[in-house]
C-alpha cells in the first residue's frame, strides 16, 4: 500500500505530479499518458524498477535486497511509495 500523499518530479519529461493516498506512482504515470514498463504490479517481477535521483522511497516490493532498499538508488513504482515529500525519478 502506498504511504500518504507525495509528489514526484520526472527529470527527463519535466513533469511534477501528485501521488495521492490511494494511488501508485505507476497509476499516476499512466493517467498522465506516460508509458513505462510494468508487468506483475505486485512488487515481484522487477519490470517497473526506476532510478531514484533524490528522495526516500517507502519500499513495498518483495524483490530487492535489504541493502538495495537501504541504498535507495532504485524503486518499484508499481507498489512503493515515499517517506519523503518528494521523489525525483529518472523518467
Amino acid at each position, binding site marked *: 500500500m502506498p504511504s500518504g500523499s507525495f509528489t514526484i518530479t520526472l527529470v527527463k519529461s519535466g513533469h511534477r505530479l501528485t501521488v495521492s493516498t490511494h494511488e501508485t506512482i505507476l497509476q499516476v504515470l499512466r493517467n498522465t499518458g506516460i*508509458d513505462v*514498463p*510494468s*508487468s*506483475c504490479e*505486485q512488487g*515481484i*517481477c*522487477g*519490470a517497473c524498477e526506476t532510478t531514484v535521483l533524490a528522495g526516500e522511497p517507502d519500499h513495498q516490493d*518483495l*524483490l530487492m*535486497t535489504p541493502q538495495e532498499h537501504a541504498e535507495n538508488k532504485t524503486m518499484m513504482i508499481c507498489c512503493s511509495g515515499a517517506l519523503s515529500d518528494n521523489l525525483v525519478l529518472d523518467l
Partner: protein
Amino acid sequence: MAQNTETTNSTSTKDASTNPQFSPDPNGRLYGRPSASHDQKLIQSAPATTGGELLRRYWQPIARSDEVKDLPIAITILHEDLVLFRDKNGQCGLVYPRCMHRGTNLIYGKIEANGIRCPYHGWLFDSQGRCLEMPCEPENTYKDKIRQPWYPLEEHYGLVFTYMGPAEKQPLFPRISVFENISEDKEVIATGSYQAPSGRQALLAGYQDYNWWQFYDNFMDPFHVYALHSSINGVQFVDILKILPKVKFEYTDDGVRTIQHRTLEDGRVHQRLSQTVMPNMNCTASVGNDLGPAGVSWTVPVNDTSFRFFSLQAQTKGANPLSNFEEIGMFKPGWGPGIDFDDWTLQDHQKWQTDYVTQKGQGDINLHSDEHLTPIDTATAMLRRLFKKQADKVANGEDPVGVRFDEPYLIKVMAGNSVLNTSLELIDGYDGRTL
C-alpha cells in the same frame, strides 16, 4: 518478430510495428495482441552474451568420469562444440574439434598414451592441446608453434568439470560443505539423468530439450509441488508434500532459498529448504519421506534450446540411489500409462502431466513478456534478478559471487528435509536455516 536486447515486460497499449491502429480489446480478445518475446539477458549462453560470460567464470560439469573411456566424445556446452577424450595415461583433455593442421574433426582421433592423434596426417596433441608430434616430418620444429585450442579440466566426485572463461579469472575449484568430513560408510556419487530399474521414468527422464531457465526456475518454485505434483493427476511424490506450505523467500550470500513449512497432523512441522547457488547450481532435497541434507546439481546449457543436468549426492556406500523410489507416487503401479517415458504419446502426457510438459510446454524458449508473476513466484523472480545482476557485474569488469583465486570458495549447502517441533526447533533431519 520483435527481438529485444532487454527484458520486455511492457504492457504498452500500442504495437505500432504490427498495427498502428491497435488498441487492446477490453475483454481480452486475442485479435491484434502484441507478439511476445524472451528475456535475452536471462536465456542466452553463447560467448559474448552477458549470461554466457557469467556462466564461463565458473567450473561447469560436462560429463561423468565414467563416460570418458577409450574413444573421444563430442560435447556441446555453452554453444561451443568440443571434443573430450581421456588419454591412455588417464588424463582427460577438452579441445576445439577442428585439427589445427587442415581441420579434420578430432572426434575421429586415435587415443594414445600421451594424447589424441589426428588420423589424417598423424599430428599428436596432449590433453592441453600442445602438438607433440608431426610424424610425416619429424625434423620440423613447427610443431612447437602449434597449439590445438583447449580448455582446462578437473575431475571431482566422478564428474569432469571444465573452465571456459578468461585464463586470469580461473577460480580454484570450490569446496562443497556437505561432501566434507563425510562418515566412513558414505560416498559421493555422480549422476547425469539415469534409468530407474523399470526403464526411464518421468521423474528422472528430463529430456532437457528446452532452454535451461525453464528447468532452473523450477527449483525456486515450491507451489508447483502442491498443484502439479500433488493434485493434478494424483500424488506424484509423497503425502507430506501434498500440504500447502507456508514459504519464506530469502536471498543468501550467493543465491536464493525457500524455506517451506508444512504443518503435520500432530502439530510438528515438516521443513523443506530448497536452495540455488549462483550462477546455475541448485541444492534440492529428496522428494520422498527421508530427512537429511540435499546434494548439489548443475544445470548446464548446451545451447539456447537444450541443457544437461548433473547431480552429486552423498549416500551410503553401495546403496541403490533409487532405493526410496517405492514410496514415491509416480513410481507406484497405477500411476502413469505403464510404459517407458520415451514411448509416451501426446495423450499419455495430457493425462499424466509432469515437470517435463509444464516446462517444455512454456516453449523451446519461454516468452517472458507474456508472464504475470504473483507472490508465489517471488523466489523465481529473485533468482532471475540475481543472475542478471551478477552478469552485469562481469560485464562491468567485476568478479561475480562465489569465485576465489587465493583459496577455494566454500559452497554452504543449506537445503534439506527436517522435522521441527511446534516452536520450530529441530527434532530430526537437516536444518540449514542458520548456516
